[in-house]
């Protein structure tokens, strides 16, 4: 922990081992960069000390990665002539030509930027309204805007890329979207009832959030308590592979729901080689997990301000340290666990900042970092990130009991990256598109599809499970997934035993939530019931 000289790539880790592929070289803006096969472009650049990948379109603010899982688009670059590639989910290859999408110098562009900065033009989004007028203006305006934004050049066509592969259709009884603990469990229990199941996940391996978790999970022995997160993922993954009636589609993102119980998905085969997959099934389980909330503070877009999940991906999946000294915003379980994981990866943690008067996560997670000397500053908030081009520090302040920063309490903290861990929001887009009724339930993390105890939504035949049905944890995600899988199956086949089993799982869930710390979840689940 304290001894190792700083190097971005983690060589030694108390729990994980990183198998790196062949050493390769690629280019970033013409500069030769060393990388290992299997690394994403973002990770390899990060390891080479390059944090800025692009700049914002309007104000030219530097942009680095934030989510590291292909959701936020702050890591776009031009790769082998293709614009707007999400470099955080694209693997590096020998000789790859990566270019930042920065605008080339132009007088007009500089003038417009300067005008924008001075507020001479209409506010955010204004150019969309101002310049669209008339068939004469728009083509010219579009060209000018593209040139100013840095997208003006049409790249040389690359003959090896962009070939369309023939699309594929999968038909069966049940499609499960999302291969986290909830989705895998749903697929398993649907398959146990003899259904023909497809399990779809956008990542190259199953496990969802579990893949990044090095700590032992709580819960009941029956649901893998005491086993490390990534290991639970592996166990579930293996079990899914043992069923011949489960088809696992990896690297496959579901992008839309269409009438007739059809899902559109796209499967990534290689860089710029993708395949359309049409999925048609009688029943569907949406177990797409959650996405990270962000926080508003000055300079929160500076490269080096990252989502907690992004940091975990970089560190525990790619094996690359996010920096030397981190500041964590949010003392919920995610923030606290992340602090411990950073220490394990040999990274100092300057402090964990929490706006509430106490930690939101479990006491034991907080105790683990406190005894290692990491301060937890409760009733504190971050006012701004400091730095030019990349994070170099932060200003934090104490909050009074009305949540206002106390004047004079501001202090500067040293850090070279900032992790935002202020909570998760259920990802509800696909069920919403499928017509499921949503409800705002703050206890469950925000908007959730209304669902009953059998995990069925307001649309018959569509079920949800895991964080999509309310932010909770792995054990409950597994139970919820099993219930959803069984419900989907029981609506197609009759099975007394399975019905009994399902009631047992519902009871187990209730027992699990029968403690003071789960009071909020219980309240939320009541609110999310139909009617």
């Amino acid at each position: 922990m304290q001894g190792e000289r700083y190097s971005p790539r983690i060589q030694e880790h108390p729990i994980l081992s990183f198998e790196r592929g062949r050493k390769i070289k690629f280019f970033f803006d013409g500069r030769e960069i060393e990388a290992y096969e299997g690394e994403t472009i973002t990770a390899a650049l990060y390891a080479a000390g390059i944090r800025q990948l692009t700049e914002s379109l309007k104000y030219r603010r530097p942009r680095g990665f934030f989510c590291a899982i292909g959701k936020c688009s702050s890591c776009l670059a031009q790769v082998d002539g293709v614009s707007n590639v999400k470099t955080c989910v694209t693997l590096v290859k020998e000789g790859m030509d990566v270019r930042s999408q920065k605008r080339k110098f132009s007088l007009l562009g500089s003038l417009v930027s300067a005008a924008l900065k001075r507020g001479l033009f209409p506010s955010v989004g204004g150019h969309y309204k101002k310049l669209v007028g008339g068939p004469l203006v728009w083509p010219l305006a579009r060209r000018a805007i593209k040139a100013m934004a840095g997208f003006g050049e049409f790249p040389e066509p690359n003959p090896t890329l962009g070939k369309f592969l023939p699309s594929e259709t999968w038909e069966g009884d049940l499609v499960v979207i999302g291969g986290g603990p909830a989705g895998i469990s749903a697929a398993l229990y649907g398959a146990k009832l003899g259904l023909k199941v497809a399990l779809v996940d956008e990542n190259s391996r199953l496990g969802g959030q579990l893949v990044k978790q090095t700590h032992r999970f709580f819960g009941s022995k029956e649901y893998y308590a005491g086993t490390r997160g990534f290991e639970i993922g592996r166990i579930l993954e293996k079990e899914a592979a043992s069923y011949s009636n489960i088809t696992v589609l990896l690297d496959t993102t579901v992008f839309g729901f269409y009438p007739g119980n059809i899902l559109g998905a796209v499967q990534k085969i290689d860089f710029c080689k993708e395949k359309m997959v049409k999925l048609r099934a009688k029943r569907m389980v949406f177990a797409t997990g959650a996405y990270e909330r962000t926080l508003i503070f000055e300079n929160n877009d500076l490269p080096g301000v990252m989502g907690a999940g992004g940091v975990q991906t970089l560190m525990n999946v790619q094996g690359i340290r996010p920096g030397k000294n981190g500041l964590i915003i949010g003392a919920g379980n995610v923030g606290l666990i992340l602090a411990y994981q950073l220490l394990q990866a040999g990274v100092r943690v300057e402090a964990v900042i929490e706006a509430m008067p106490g930690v939101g996560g479990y006491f034991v997670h907080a105790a683990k970092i406190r005894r290692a000397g990491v301060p937890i500053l409760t009733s504190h908030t971050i006012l701004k990130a400091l730095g030019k081009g990349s994070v170099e520090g932060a200003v934090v302040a104490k909050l009074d009991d009305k949540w206002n920063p106390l004047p004079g309490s501001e202090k500067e903290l040293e850090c070279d990256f900032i992790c935002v861990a202020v909570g998760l929001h259920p990802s509800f887009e696909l069920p919403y598109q499928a017509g499921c009724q949503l409800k705002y339930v703050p206890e469950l993390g925000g908007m959730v599809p209304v669902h009953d105890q059998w995990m069925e939504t307001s649309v018959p035949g569509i079920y949800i499970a895991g964080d999509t049905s309310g932010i909770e944890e792995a054990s409950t995600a597994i139970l919820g997934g099993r219930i959803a899988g069984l419900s989907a199956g029981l609506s197609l086949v009759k099975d007394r035993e399975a019905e009994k089993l399902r009631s047992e799982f519902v009871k187990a869930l209730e027992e699990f939530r029968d403690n003071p710390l789960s009071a909020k979840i219980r309240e939320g689940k009541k609110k999310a019931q139909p009617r």
Partner: protein
Amino acid sequence: MEKRLRQGFITSEDLKNLPDKERLKKGWVAVIECPQNIPCDACIYACKTQALEMKTVADLPVINYDKCIGCFQCMHACPGVAIFMVRLTDDGKGMVSLPYEFTDLPKAGETVDLLNRLGEKLGPARVIRTFSMGKDAAKSSYVTVETAPELIWDARFIRRR
């Protein structure tokens, strides 16, 4: 204590029903620092002598020191890294075994700093041994240190010098 829990630490005064000197001299015994009702029962299943009890999954574990044989299994099973092993030696020294999930494991014989639950220095301690339990993904490392007897209730982490 409720207030301290929310700040992420307890003190030795918060520990109830600790084993007496006599028991401590007999050999290793577990100290369980799990003061919050979280749904977790991993330690109960790890205990081979039924020294740990819990009614429902969200109860606090209760330990019976007469049944505890100091086998370290519950310390290894605890997902919260909240169980520590303590004992007193015949010549009146204190010993603590604690989880240490980091790469810079100290060596036997090395002098390290003992830290309390807030990461504050308590004083020096001599490392007796480092060891691991479990295989592959279940593997964890532990450090046993020898120190002043009064420090066994407060020493919960070490730092290499």
